[in-house]
Each structure stands twice: as structure tokens, then as C-alpha cells.
């Protein structure tokens, strides 16, 4: 970023400005273009998105232009490739969707970049590398690749490398297949940089990045009799520093922390995080809305955040019986749960993310709203990702939803919210105040206002 940006901080004294938007403008959304995951790499230089069509698009941040302090580094397309294709499981007569459920970057070790991308059944390790020179002057081949007639060769020359236009290549280096019977919902790279976990509805497997033909099952909650099934695994993540520790969340609103040193099979948790249900909020749909859709460790590894349908909770890893902080994301929806059940919105899986220094968390909502929750200042703001606020460096205006009663000016009433416009995936640059917010088929990039 150009000039004096506060690194990683930001809450409500931060003003967010529009920076860029990627994706088609027209309202007719092709299903394949629906964004299904967004992830910055560890340096923040690269931003990857996956979509329902199985494609991965990687954006790269331009290097700063220090001579122009007002300029903002922009993210431009760096690489696009088809990660997964639709498959058909002939044995079960099931189609396997190519939708990319998750992308996770590996920490960079050399010039190339590596990421893991997964659909419902198969995880792939992709290598993204740059090529900016090519060999020229082969003796036996023409420049276009055709072989020369040996009889016509009268001299020998040494091939040399000549510069060429930058080409970014993505190649699949590993394919981790057949590890999961149920749908994969999470992948998480271990801090040891050698292993990663993948979680489906009932099982969590541990893989080695080099080994594709087998994995270790570390959690299995499948009951002997499937009729007794009462909860499924909804998300899992490795601890950012402790390579033996991971957590997984359930559809019942609990989080289990497991220590792989304790035993080979981590069915017995080391810690169980669960908050007693508030009886005054009971309804038909209490169970659905308590299902956790995302779990994320803080960068410092001391906290974790969970997202359920209506709230975000911050947990201290040392306290299991209740979260240390709870934030309502869109409490005004509590009275609409029946309608949201009918139109399936109640099953939407919202993600959440931390900023670089763990002081602010962000999550999405409906009507293309997203919420910034400042932990240190105990304040929150609702912003909107819309094409109407797309002028360069336009400051985003806080939005307010009127739950009932008299609607003030500039407020939007609950009944006017567009539930088809949902922000499920957001990502925060690991060091700077740059955020990527995915609407249905567009990716918005917002940055902190620079004065």
C-alpha cells in the first residue's frame, strides 16, 4: 500500500473505500460464476477465488508505486485455471459437483506458489509458477516444435534463454482422491508445513502433502447405526502455531479441540466448547441456527471465532463453558426464521475472518451487507458491497437496518432486504487494511481510506 497505512488494525475509526470490483456486471448470474471461496495468501500479495464452475482465479497485487502516494495497489488477474471438473460416481449414481468449496494457500518456500483447492470429494495441490524466459535455438527442432530433417543440419549451436512475456502456469502436483465418503467442508494446512487436514460431515483425515494414496483418519463421528445420527462436522481448522492441535465445529453448536498427541484417533476431545442455549430464544429452528458454519483461529492462536446463523462468537481457548464475546450479526432476522426456512436461506453458511492483529472481525449478511465488529472498541458497522458505491476511493457509508417501527431516513427495513444477495465469503489481508468481499458473482476489494 502506498503511504502511511496503519498495519492490520482498523475498526470504526477506519473508513473503508471502494477499490475494485471483479466480475460480470449484468444481473443475470451464470451459476458457474458464483463465487464459493475467497482466500488471501500468507503475504497478502495474492488473492484466490474459487467458483461453482470449478475454476480458480488468482489476483496479484501490483507492486507499490512510491512516486505516486495516492495510488493504491490494485489486484489484477494473475492466473486462471480449471481446478476441478464435474465427475460422476458410477458406483453410487451420484454426480460430484465441481464447485470449489475451499482454497488454502501453503506458505511460500521458493519462487513458486502452492495452494490446495477442494471440491466435495477431491483435494488438489496446485503449483503456480512464473515463466518469463524460454529456450531458443534448438538444433533438432524448429521454433514451432517440428523436428528438422537431420540431413539438413550442418552446424551446431547452443540453445539460449531469451526473455518472453510473463506466463503464469498452474499445474496440479498432487491429487488427493478417495479419502472421503461424505462432502468435504474444510481443509486446513498445518503449521508444520507437511501435513493438512480435510473434514467432511462425519470424518476428519490427516494427509501428508507428499503422499496421495493414503491418509490417516483422526476423527470419526459416524454412529454405528446411522439412524442415531444427531450431529455432523461443519468446519475444522488447525491451530496456527501448535501443530498437534486442531478444532472442529458441529451442527449442534459445539466446538471440540483435539490434541493429536493424545491418541491416534481423536474421537475424544481435549476440550469441548459449548454455550448453554438461551431458553427464551427457543423455536422450531433453534437447532438450525445454532449450527456453526465457520470456525477460525485468531492469528495469535489464543482465540477462536465461530459463526452461526445469527451471531459471531469469540472463544478463549482456555474457557470452554461460554464465549468471551458474542456479536449479533443480524438479530432482526430472528423473527423471520420461518420464512428463511422456507426459502432455504436459513441453511446459508456464512464465513468469518479476523484482521491482521485480531482486533476486528468481519462477516457477511444479506442484501450484500457485511459487518465489521471491532473487538477492542466494542463497536460495529454495517457496510454494503454494491455497484452504486463503485466510484474510485468512494467512502462506504454505514448502513442501518430498521427492525420494526418507524423507519428512519437512510435506514432499510427488514422486509426490503434482498435475501438473494448474500455475502457468504470474505477475506482480510493478513497485514493491511484491505478486504475482499464476495457477493454472488462479484468480488469487491475495499481498502482503508488514505488521507
Amino acid at each position, binding site marked *: 500500500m502506498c503511504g502511511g497505512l496503519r498495519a492490520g488494525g482498523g475498526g470504526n475509526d477506519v473508513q473503508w473505500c471502494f477499490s475494485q470490483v471483479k466480475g460480470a456486471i449484468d444481473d443475470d448470474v451464470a451459476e458457474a460464476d458464483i463465487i464459493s471461496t475467497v482466500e488471501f495468501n500468507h503475504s497478502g500479495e495474492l488473492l484466490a477465488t474459487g467458483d461453482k464452475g470449478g475454476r480458480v482465479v488468482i489476483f496479484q497485487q501490483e507492486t507499490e508505486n512510491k512516486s505516486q502516494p495516492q495510488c493504491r495497489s490494485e489486484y489484477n488477474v494473475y492466473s486462471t485455471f480449471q481446478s476441478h471438473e464435474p465427475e460422476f460416481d458410477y*458406483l*453410487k*449414481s*451420484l*454426480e*460430484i*459437483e465441481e*464447485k470449489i468449496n475451499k482454497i488454502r494457500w501453503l506458505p511460500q518456500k521458493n519462487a513458486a506458489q502452492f495452494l490446495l483447492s477442494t471440491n*466435495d470429494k477431491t483435494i488438489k495441490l496446485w503449483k503456480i509458477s512464473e515463466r518469463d524466459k524460454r529456450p531458443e535455438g534448438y538444433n533438432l527442432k524448429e521454433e514451432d516444435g517440428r523436428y528438422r530433417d537431420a540431413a539438413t543440419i550442418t552446424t551446431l549451436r547452443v540453445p539460449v534463454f531469451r526473455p518472453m512475456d510473463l506466463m503464469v502456469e498452474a499445474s496440479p502436483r498432487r491429487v488427493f482422491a478417495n479419502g472421503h*465418503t*461424505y*462432502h468435504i*467442508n474444510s481443509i486446513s494446512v498445518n503449521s508444520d508445513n507437511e501435513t493438512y487436514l480435510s473434514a467432511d*460431515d*462425519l470424518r476428519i483425515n490427516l494427509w501428508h502433502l507428499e503422499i496421495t494414496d493414503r491418509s490417516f483418519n483422526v476423527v470419526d463421528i459416524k*454412529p454405528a*447405526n*446411522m*439412524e*442415531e*445420527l*444427531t*450431529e*455432523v462436522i*461443519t468446519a475444522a481448522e488447525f491451530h496456527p502455531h501448535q501443530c498437534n492441535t486442531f478444532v472442529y465445529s458441529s*451442527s*449442534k453448536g459445539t466446538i471440540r479441540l483435539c490434541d493429536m498427541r493424545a491418541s491416534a484417533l481423536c474421537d475424544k476431545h481435549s476440550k469441548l466448547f459449548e454455550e*448453554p*442455549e438461551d*431458553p*427464551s430464544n*427457543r*423455536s*422450531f*429452528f*433453534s*437447532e*438450525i441456527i445454532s*449450527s456453526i458454519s465457520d470456525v477460525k483461529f485468531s492469528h495469535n492462536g489464543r482465540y477462536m471465532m465461530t459463526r452461526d446463523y445469527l451471531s459471531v462468537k469469540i472463544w478463549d481457548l482456555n474457557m470452554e463453558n461460554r464465549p468471551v464475546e458474542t456479536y449479533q450479526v443480524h438479530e432482526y432476522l*430472528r*423473527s*423471520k*426464521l*420461518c*420464512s428463511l*426456512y*422456507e426459502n*432455504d436461506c436459513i*441453511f446459508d453458511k456464512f464465513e468469518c475472518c479476523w484482521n491482521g492483529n485480531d482486533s476486528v472481525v468481519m462477516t457477511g449478511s444479506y442484501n450484500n451487507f457485511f459487518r465489521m465488529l471491532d473487538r477492542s472498541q466494542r463497536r460495529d458497522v454495517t457496510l454494503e458491497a454494491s455497484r452504486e458505491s463503485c466510484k474510485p476511493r468512494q467512502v462506504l457509508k454505514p448502513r442501518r437496518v430498521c427492525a*420494526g417501527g418507524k423507519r428512519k431516513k437512510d435506514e432499510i427495513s427488514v422486509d426490503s432486504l434482498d435475501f438473494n444477495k448474500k455475502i457468504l465469503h470474505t477475506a482480510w489481508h493478513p497485514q493491511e487494511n484491505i478486504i475482499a468481499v464476495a457477493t454472488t458473482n462479484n468480488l469487491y476489494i475495499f481498502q482503508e481510506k488514505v488521507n
Partner: protein
Amino acid sequence: MEYKVEAHRIMSISLGKIYNSRVQRGGIKLHKNLLVSLVLRSARQVYLSDYYSGACLNAQSEREGNEWDITDSEREKFPPSATECDRVESTEEPQPNEQPEKEREYRENDDEVKSDQVDCTSTLQEQNQNSSLDSVAKVSSETPPESITEPKESPSDSAVAERDSTPEANGESHQPPKPYVCSNRKRSAEESESGDSPQKRTKVASSNAKEDEEAEEMDTSNVSNLITIFGSSFSGLLSKESAKPEAEAEDSGQICCDQMLKNLNPWSTAIVAF
């Protein structure tokens, strides 16, 4: 009774979702189907309990008058909130008492199908007599573990005792002249809070058959409408091979319904079809 209509509607919607999930691309989503089956189960309990409370309303009017004095802490499931579903349920006062019991015990016995039985039981208990009020009050105010282990607790027992349809059934809460349906017949010893009198349990056991028949009779007409609506859908499902994810999703749909509905023929046809 609007809440009955609402519960019926939610059941229809839930069944529709379960059916549609089979034709969705990517196969059955276990998580979503599990959640839908939970809602289906809750709606069904409300629906059935409404039915019985309505049927016996006249006979029970005297007793139920006492139940209107239920404390707020017991109106846990359906407080008079703004939710469309909640509102209709809160109009039926016995309702709120049932659900907390159900919810707690469900959460407790999350690995047990019998939780369904207890739940169904508990939906019925509230229509019971004065003594049940005390036990209900206890249940509502206790934390889940306690509500299960509390020996004096007799909500399930009250249900086992069945609802007394005649005014003669007095304060002695454990007289089962008119047996109730579903869960009772499946209740295991550990479920019934131990405060039961042995006499009551014996009666329960012996009246199972009677319960079933009565339940079936009462339920059939309501259920058959649903079956008619979904009848053609289910027939296709029967022929599906038992691919693992499907079987499991089917099972998850069955979890909540199966034990309770086994002896209700129309229901079992529908659910087994999954």
C-alpha cells in the same frame, strides 16, 4: 388452531425439502437433511400434541385451567414472540411446557433415538394434572443433566401415566385410563424418571397395543393427506439403490421419525420410503 396448521405446513415443507434434496446436483447433503429432519420432528410433535390436546380439551378443561398458571420460565419453547410460527404456538398454553422438556432431553440424549420417545412423551405430559405441573416446573428450571437424573421428576411419567380424559382422574397423576400414542410404548426403564410407581409402568406396558391403535386411528386422516401429496414422490424413492450417502441421508431423515412412527402405518410408509 393456527399452530396446528402451521406445524402441518412446516412438516409439508420439510418433507418437500427432503425429497428435493434427492434430485439435487451433487448428491444428498447430509447436514441439511439432518437439520430438516430435526425441524420435521419438532413440527410433528407440535402437530400431534396439538391434536391430542384439542381432542381431550373438553375433558381436561378443569385440569388445564390449572396449567394456565404456568410460570414464564416454562413458556420456553414458544414465548409470545413475533415469529409467525412461535406466535401460533404460544396461543396454546400447554405447548410451552412441552418443548423445553423435549429440547433438553433431546440434547441430553443426543445419541439415543429414545430421546424422540421422551420428547413425544413430554409433549403429552403437559396436559396432565396438577402434579405434573410441579414436575414440569422442576424440569423447566433445571439444567439438562438434572432434568434427566432427577429422581423425583415425573414429566415422562406423567406422560406414561397418560392423559386422563375423564374428570375422575384426580390429582393422582399416574392414572392412565386413556393411553397416548407413540413414545410411551418404547420407553426404556432409564428414561422413565424413577419416581414412577411400578403400577403405572405396568399399565403402560399393557396398554401399548391400545395406544397404538388409538394413535393410528387419530393420526391416519391427517397423515394421509400428506401421503397423498407426496405419494408419487415416495414411490420413486423406494426403488433407489442403497447408495451410502443416500442411505444415510435417508436414515437421518428416519432418525427422528422412525421410532415414533413405526406403528403408524401411513407415516411409516412415507418415511420408510426415504
